């Protein structure tokens, strides 16, 4: 990978490679150094990063499933789970987008939409067909809907977000080391979660920890809890970790 050179203007191509995470570590470090010394370059990079983030929640962006259909590709199998870690935007705005396809099942209304342990508040904004609203108790979502999360915690710490589908599988949507330690107060998590494919009940666990946690252990615990009690199990993290649970039913569009 090439690295920028002080003697010449930083090209648009290089900025795109930086913003999308294509530069190697040396190139990234060099770009960060140049941006720190050049406010115009920093503004240009910030603008492109903002455009990347806006793109992910833009209502004009067609769901990937549409593109697959147009390309004549078969739809993916139910219960397939996809997880992307996108380190492209910036070190401080690592982005993870998840598409979930779950085994179809009868839609059941969750008996308890939100439960809290400790006091982290979580708001989820739903982007549905170009309209944004807050996720409310008992709401049904649809494939293609997007969720953006705002976490409000009085102590701050490491934020981990886990998603459990109706088949019990657990994905780490946001890893604690990607966001880093957040300060007390409100933080809007970068990017969004895209819901995809079949119907079913899903649960999102937002956990704030004082120390850097191991999400893999929580994944295993959640899967065991599901095996014992089904999707409406009563798992919560042990110790000082504060948890917030969001639950929704997902229907086909």
């Amino acid at each position: 990978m090439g690295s920028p050179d002080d003697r010449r203007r930083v090209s648009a191509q290089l900025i795109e490679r930086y913003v999308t995470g294509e530069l190697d570590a040396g190139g990234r470090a060099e770009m960060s150094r140049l941006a720190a010394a050049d406010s115009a370059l920093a503004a240009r990079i910030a603008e492109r990063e903002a455009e990347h983030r806006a793109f992910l929640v833009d209502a004009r962006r067609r769901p990937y499933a549409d593109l697959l259909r147009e390309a004549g590709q078969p739809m993916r199998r139910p219960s397939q789970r996809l997880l992307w870690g996108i380190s492209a935007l910036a070190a401080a705005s690592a982005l993870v987008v998840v598409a979930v396809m779950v085994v179809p099942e009868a839609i059941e209304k969750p008996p308890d939409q939100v439960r809290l342990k400790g006091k982290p508040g979580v708001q989820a904004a739903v982007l549905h067909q170009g309209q944004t609203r807050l996720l409310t108790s008992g709401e049904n979502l649809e494939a293609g809907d997007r969720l953006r999360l705002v976490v409000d915690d009085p102590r701050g710490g490491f934020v981990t977000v886990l998603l459990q589908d109706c088949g019990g599988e657990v994905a780490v949507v946001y890893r604690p080391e990607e966001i880093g330690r957040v300060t007390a107060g409100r933080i809007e998590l970068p990017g969004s979660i895209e819901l995809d494919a079949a119907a079913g009940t899903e649960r999102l666990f937002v956990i704030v920890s004082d120390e850097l946690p191991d999400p893999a252990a929580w994944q295993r615990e959640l899967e065991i809890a599901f095996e014992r009690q089904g999707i409406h199990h009563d798992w919560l993290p042990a110790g000082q970790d504060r948890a917030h649970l969001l639950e929704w039913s997902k229907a086909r569009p």
Partner: protein
Amino acid sequence: MDPVGLETIEDWYQRYGSSVLLRCRQLLGQEAQAWDAMHQTFVRAIRYRHKYQGTGTPLGWLHSIAWRVCLDELRRRKRQACPGAELPREPGAVSTGDPESAVVAQRTVAWLMPRFREQIQQMVYLRYFDELEIDEIAQQMGVSVRTVERRLGHFLEKSRRLLGQEDSHGIA
């Protein structure tokens, strides 16, 4: 290299979609058409994913598809009038000065490009949209610096004639 899977393309859609959209916007100028072209780029990427050899970056490969998608559209528009702008005074000048003029200049360049052969189009694209220096273009395309200079000079010279606005716009 393993063949690129549908999940990888989906990853790229999230990761590079905005960058592809930007290029389509620069080339086509019109927002709705830029979105269509961006989507069409990924439809083609899905169809032809087996052709990605991994020799270049995914972003470069997607940009090359977007380039062809947009050129198809520009060729379709070829008979339409020029958007009524001026050329940049020199290659690489597009992004300097006020942003509005830069956009106008890029649209003019985009309007002109279908009138040139593919190698020149590619050089013009790298110069005016990717903002590469002459030596960087030469390196990427595997040609000499002199060749790039000559081809871009030809582009400007012929563009002046095509626009027929040498006096009014003071093209360098």
